[in-house]
């Protein structure tokens, strides 16, 4: 089992889903289904911890690799493995999936379908982060769409149908462009062993194997653009972000958590896993590089401004995600060790922090049945523990030192500013505006909801319960721990990211760019 730990971690949820579908209909059905899900995702967490322990931090090569022929005639392989970039995302996914099972405890409608789809989604996410064969990557990427669509569409809020189809169309639009890009790679990268075509990402990353169309610079730019749109929609980068507020608002709590905590990361993960190393020269192409930064800055500032304008708490959190993913992009753009590591760390941290935020929104929504920021007031008197956790999450979100996001955001900013590859100083300075704006709307929200006189309507609001605490406390601990000592995660990333930077910086010379 330990020799193919990645396969287990990917497919455990599917096994769980299959078992769930076999559960006969009786009065204990619901709880059996829940516990199967708990076991499946719990085992996943165990495996994730095992991976974390066993992962070799001193190499940038892929680890725990499994490779098997799948469709030999087309050179499609089942090829999985992880490096520093993926391992952090694998950990995040395992953790959030496990927590979300508990956050889904309150689901009453079509329980069987819900958990089965959720576990299917889990497999898709894990697969994306582990796949090293582009075809496999794409399959997992798309596999996530169907469960997500139904999870939003069936168990979501009042406008769920609209939100679900919007999510579906947007992401499909992005991924089909990726499909074309993938095929261009396939036919224009030479398999070093057989001389044929290959979907092997590691071969794609080897620039010397590029041939045919991929030796034309303008084709490379076009392919990069196609990939970028695919990933930008997931991130979501301005102006492809409008699916996000709708999807987040309508999705049930656990799904919002997954959406914001894991799915958004896939955009930046894809950029770092595929776009950067396979087409480094396109990323180094000045108009692209600066365009990328401009979008990042817009994300940060515009996301924050939009968040400030929201009256719906969940929507505000959603827009705040847009801003924070902008920080990730900003960190990635400068190609400095600080920025790149900061960006990936920010992916991880945003995953945990935003998960907390959505869980917290879910807690209050379950009690008050609305999310109107103005409609609360003085809740801290009634729910002191809840308020305490809210404050941890809010302050983490606004980047307070001592909480995880601070370090990653600061690194992203510092990294972008000190870039030697591009001059990003002015952009970074503009982006710092976001720091103030985030503080503004987070604190303003905190004030309107929790401070002041208690709204008499909520005089008998029950305090957060044990199950909810169980979902939130681990995250809070992680947020605080990584805020004080981020090295455990940074150690995982560092070698990989630094290696990536070297690759990127060599590209212009390799492709004869000025």
């Amino acid at each position, binding site marked *: 089992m330990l020799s193919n730990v990645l396969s287990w971690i990917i497919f455990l949820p599917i096994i769980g889903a299959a078992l769930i579908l076999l559960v006969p209909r009786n009065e204990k059905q619901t709880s059996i289904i829940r516990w199967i899900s708990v076991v499946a995702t719990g085992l996943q967490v165990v495996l994730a911890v095992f991976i974390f322990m066993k992962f070799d931090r001193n190499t940038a090569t892929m680890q725990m690799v499994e490779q098997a022929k799948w469709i030999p005639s087309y050179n499609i392989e089942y090829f999985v493995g992880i490096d520093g970039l993926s391992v952090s995302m694998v950990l995040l996914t395992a953790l959030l999936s496990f927590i979300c099972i508990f956050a889904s405890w309150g689901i009453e409608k079509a329980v069987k379908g819900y958990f089965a789809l959720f576990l299917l989604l889990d497999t898709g996410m894990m697969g994306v982060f582990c796949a090293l064969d582009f075809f496999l990557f794409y399959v997992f990427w798309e596999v996530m769409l169907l469960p997500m669509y139904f999870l939003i569409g069936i168990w979501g809020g009042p406008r769920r149908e609209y939100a679900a189809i919007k999510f579906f169309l947007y992401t*499909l639009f992005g991924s089909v462009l990726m499909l*074309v890009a993938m095929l261009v790679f396939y036919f224009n990268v030479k398999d070093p062993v057989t001389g044929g075509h290959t979907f092997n990402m590691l071969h794609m990353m080897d620039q010397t194997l590029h041939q045919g169309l991929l030796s034309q610079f303008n084709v490379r730019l076009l392919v990069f653009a196609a990939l970028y749109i695919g990933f930008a929609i997931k991130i979501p980068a301005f102006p492809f972000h409008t699916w996000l507020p709708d999807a987040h608002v309508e999705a049930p709590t656990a799904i919002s958590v997954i959406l914001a905590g894991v799915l958004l990361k896939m955009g930046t993960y894809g950029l770092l896993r595929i776009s950067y190393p396979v087409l480094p020269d396109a990323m180094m192409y000045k108009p692209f590089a600066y365009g990328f930064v401009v979008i990042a800055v817009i994300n940060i500032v515009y996301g924050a401004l939009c968040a400030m304008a929201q009256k719906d708490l969940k929507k505000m959190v959603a827009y705040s995600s847009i801003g924070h993913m902008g920080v990730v992009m900003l960190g990635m753009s400068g190609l400095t060790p600080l920025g790149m590591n900061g960006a990936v760390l920010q992916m991880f941290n945003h995953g945990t922090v935003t998960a907390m935020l959505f869980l917290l929104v879910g807690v209050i929504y379950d009690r008050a049945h609305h999310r109107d920021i103005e409609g609360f007031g003085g809740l801290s008197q009634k729910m002191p523990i809840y308020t305490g956790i809210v404050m941890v999450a809010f302050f983490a979100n606004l980047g307070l030192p001592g909480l995880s996001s601070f370090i990653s955001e600061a690194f992203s900013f510092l990294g972008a500013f000190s870039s030697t590859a591009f001059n990003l100083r002015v952009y970074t300075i503009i982006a710092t505006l976001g720091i103030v704006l985030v503080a503004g709307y987070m604190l303003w929200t905190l004030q309107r909801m929790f401070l002041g006189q208690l709204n008499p309507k909520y005089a008998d609001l029950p305090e957060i319960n044990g199950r909810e605490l169980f979902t939130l406390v681990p995250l809070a601990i992680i947020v605080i721990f990584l805020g004080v000592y981020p090295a455990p995660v940074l150690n995982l990333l560092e070698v990989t990211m630094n290696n990536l930077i070297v690759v990127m910086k060599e590209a212009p010379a390799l492709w004869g760019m000025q």
Partner: protein
Amino acid sequence: MDSTAVAISLKDNISSLSYFVPEFILIGLMLVLIIVDITIKRESTPWLGVIALIGSVIALVAVFAQAALPVTGLFNNMLAVDPFSWFFKLLFLGSMILVVFLSMTSLELAGRNVGEYFILLTATTLGMFWMASATNLLTIFIAIETVSITSFALASYLKTVKRSSEAGLKYTIYGTFSSGLMLYGFSLLYGLTGSLNIVEISKILASSQPHPLTLFVAVLLILAGFGYKIASVPFHFWAPDVYEGAPTPITAFFSVGPKAAGFALLIRFFNTALATTEDGASWYPVVAEVNWPQLLAVVAAATMTLGNLIAIKQNNLKRLLAYSSIAHAGYALMGTVLLTREGVYATMFYLVAYYLMNLGAFLVVIICQELIKSERIQDYRGLGYRAPVVAAAMTIFLFSLTGLPVTVGFIGKFYLLAALVRGGEQYIWLAVVAVLNTVVSLFYYARIFKAMYLESTDDLTLTRLQISPSALVLLAVFAVPTVFLGVYWAPLFDWATASVKFFAGL
């Protein structure tokens, strides 16, 4: 023609008969059906379906027996026996068998005299066999007409239903008209080359300098005939009306069988008559002045776009699937535009995928005609809770039609796109159009599963609907391969690749 030549050709004809066993079986089946139909009592007509089923299974076995046959020309090269036609024959018989099944469960046909129905169905299948193996303009014409004429009758089979009759009328007029155009095109091509054999035509075209304009007009007119069969733009207009009006099993059949036959013909005609192979891997247009690939590319793009766009606004599921089938013809056409091996086997693979998922979708429509007595999308509301298995199967088919992993539809599309990207830069625009069309198509497919799962069912009583075990088995027959081939499709792929082998003259 001297006597030795006659003797040789006669000998050839006689020896060809041994290759003609499947066709004979089908003809025999027709005769048996006619006889039985006359003799049995009216209430036992369901047995006719069983007979048709047995007959077609026997034919299937016979076709299988031909697997190892060498590439041969039959009846003085009027028809060909080659892996390519073999592939399609299996596909046709597969669709026939399943359509017989569908017909037996169909409500629309219940209580009618189905003897003629099965006879016509068998005849259509026979015609499709010929379409897949015809190598002569004459046999092509005969094959197409066989399929057409029987199809006209099948479309208007529900004589008492107005829309069925109307569909038949439109089909007839449009069909005969298209045949006329094609025939005129044939005559021009014959005039240019002096031959009816498509292999010879290719040689003559390559060695002489045909008048480009005439050649072009001729091919365009021929394309009208083929295009009408595969329902590609701009010869698709009949399809939605006929699909809606015809009995649902027949609609399902039309959307798969004759369409696939049309593709077989199109591929063979374009790759054999109008192109030449140089290295065995790819073909090149024999007449350089005429850029067939780009012309077909435009047709393909227009077909899928139009089909998808119109489908968005449909409320009748049958009609929606009709437009969607036009769009899928556009996708499949992408593979044929290239004149490459990759393109051809991608098309063939896609046709199999399409066969599974489209027939599956029609099967659900037929089951739902019985369950909820409606074809309107809004009446599918809550089906996910009332008939979970049916709805789940429908979802699989729709996802496959959209082209999402892990379904065979995705793999099919993947190979088509791969062939395009392989074909070079000049086709990438078509690939992009195709993938964007995928997004558009999701828009209307999503309406169906939205209705089944997402829409509010507060005003409905969600009682479970009873589904017959046979229907469940049939659903599984389609749904399981749709998913399984999406995960592991190597056998199908290898088969399709191996089947790209044409009869190319003696």
